[in-house]
């Protein structure tokens, strides 16, 4: 499948509907909000790519994604994702999610974002992720 994989393309093996919602909310964003790095990275394939579309920032591979989260976890004292509405598609092995982000820089005022992510899975893990933000990009490059 790896040779012919494409985002939402044919040849995917559908997972049960709740798996898509659970990996986004109970595994990925719960890991982000609690700054649990291993839980976050376990959601990604080793060669996953995460793109912040509104600033065209691209993080290639799990180590670049790790570096990005090291910086995010260090720069912000609290992070919360909620108010989710999902478009979950087992046939395409993909899920797109809308949500609110409440995030507070160290010593600063809380910021509110209305964001969306598109997650395309390869087997059971995120292989391509696209993030749109309603404000300045928070997912900046870290030190790899």
């Amino acid at each position, binding site marked *: 499948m790896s040779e012919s994989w494409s985002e939402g393309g044919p040849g995917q093996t559908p997972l049960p509907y709740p798996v898509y919602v659970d990996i986004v909310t109970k595994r990925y964003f719960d890991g982000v909000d609690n700054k649990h790095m291993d839980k976050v990275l376990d959601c990604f394939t080793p060669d996953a790519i995460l793109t912040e579309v*509104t600033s065209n920032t691209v993080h290639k591979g799990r180590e670049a994604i790790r570096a990005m989260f090291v910086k995010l976890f260090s720069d912000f004292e609290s992070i919360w994702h909620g108010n989710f*509405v*999902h*478009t979950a598609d087992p*046939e395409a092995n993909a899920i797109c999610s*809308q949500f609110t982000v409440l995030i507070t820089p160290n010593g600063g005022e809380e910021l509110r974002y209305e964001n969306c992510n598109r997650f395309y899975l390869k087997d059971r893990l995120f292989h391509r992720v696209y993030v749109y933000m309603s404000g300045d990009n928070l997912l900046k490059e870290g030190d790899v």
Partner: protein
Amino acid sequence: MQYEPTLSRADLIDFALNKYFARVDAKDMDAVLDCFHDTALFCVQTAFTRHSGKSEIARMFEDFFASYKTIIHRDFTCTVDEANGRITACFTAELHDHEGQVTLLENTNFWRLRPGPDGAKFQEVYVYMSGANPLV
């Protein structure tokens, strides 16, 4: 679910791509507006812009159609939640203005369809843009 799902996967894709976007590109205002309930909400989340009700949505499209000589939406990837009447698509928006300038955007739309007496239509539309918002 927010709204009872009534359309199949194929019908949701047909509604979003053919009944809606193909008619946007044709600047066919009546056909475009027929995709929306009277009380529909159209939000550009990346610009905190909200158009509430069909008359505000019509005004938005009037200005959008007038601003660009040619409007092309292409290269769609659809994600379909048939069980909940929701569909998401990412696509390229290619906008040619009257001076020959071309704007390319890599956008994502989320549509929530609600059934009604004339069939399921858009009740909520959320747009996330990669650049400046032309839907003002």
